[in-house]
């Protein structure tokens, strides 16, 4: 299955950049949404987002279209989360 990385293994191809964003959201939904909407300002959309203090809704990690979310399995509320773009496969 072709993935983002295997797509650009040919040395003659023009390699894209791979932006990784890090942000402390302070558990705020507004901050979270502002962050993900601001990715349109980047030359290439972010593919991986590392969040500290991510927002939750009814004990479930907030999601954003086009991203998969991951949080460590902790007994309490996780303090970090990773959002991975679905384009990475």
């Amino acid at each position, binding site marked *: 299955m072709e993935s983002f990385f295997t797509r650009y293994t040919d040395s003659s191809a023009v390699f894209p950049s791979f932006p*990784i964003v*890090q942000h402390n959201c302070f558990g705020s939904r507004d901050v979270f949404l502002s962050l993900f909407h601001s990715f349109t300002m980047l030359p290439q959309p972010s593919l991986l987002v590392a969040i500290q203090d991510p927002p939750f809704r009814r004990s479930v990690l907030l999601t954003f279209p086009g991203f998969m979310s991951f949080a460590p399995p902790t007994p309490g509320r996780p303090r970090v989360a990773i959002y991975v773009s679905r384009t990475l496969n």
Partner: protein
Amino acid sequence: MFSPEGLFGSPHRSLRVTSVYLLRTNHPPYRSIFPERIFSFLSYPQLVLGDFNLHHPLGDPCLSLSEREFIISTSYFDAAGDLPYHLLNTPGVYTRFPFDTISRPSVLDLAFANTALSSLVSSWDTPLPSTGSDHVPCVITLRPPAIMLPPPTLHWALLNLDAVGKALDTFTTQPCPERPTPNSLSRWFDISSTRLTSLVTESAYCSRYCTYLMLDVSYSGSSIVALFFLPCTFLICYSFLLGYLFLSSLIAFTTLLPFRQPYAFLLVLLD
């Protein structure tokens, strides 16, 4: 993350991204996670990034630190440096702007790359607007390593003084704004100085390293050297190749002639 074909064509097939959020505690190491748990030796690329809640002169050189704060942060920076991990932050670029007017901005969001990842890191920046948080988003860009030629530099010894003199005689600046403000005056000065600089640099020759023979050649847009440089390089390389073939044939012929074995002669020639 894992890619069976290698990341960006590099031999590494895995990339580990560790998101860190350190909270203050009342017991050593006075943060919620020990440095040894954050930084570990890995043979493949690893990126450690997050809100470390640490103040350190490497990230914020202008900050005057208390001894306690320095000791706390140094344990983390030492653990990173021993493996080694490299700090990606641009020193002095703040990542937290407190809402109150008493506290100063600080560098709390840090990013570290281990040696395997360092060659893939293109930039660390804070290009995104405020999200409403007192922290700003940090963007780390990975890019495959590329061979970058050094930019051409001006060769002042070959500066065409006559051409520069003639150009300077006809050079005029734009009129200064009638009611100058600091911004408009600064803009007018920038435009004029840029025009003047480009006028001089256009008359100067450039030095550039040749990628084939590593020769330092000088050229300008109208120089005849530039027109003949590539054909000359090709001819020189071709002459070297012909000379090498002729000499190897000669040596092989004289060595193997007494044995009268044409197949051996061919083998040596091919070698």
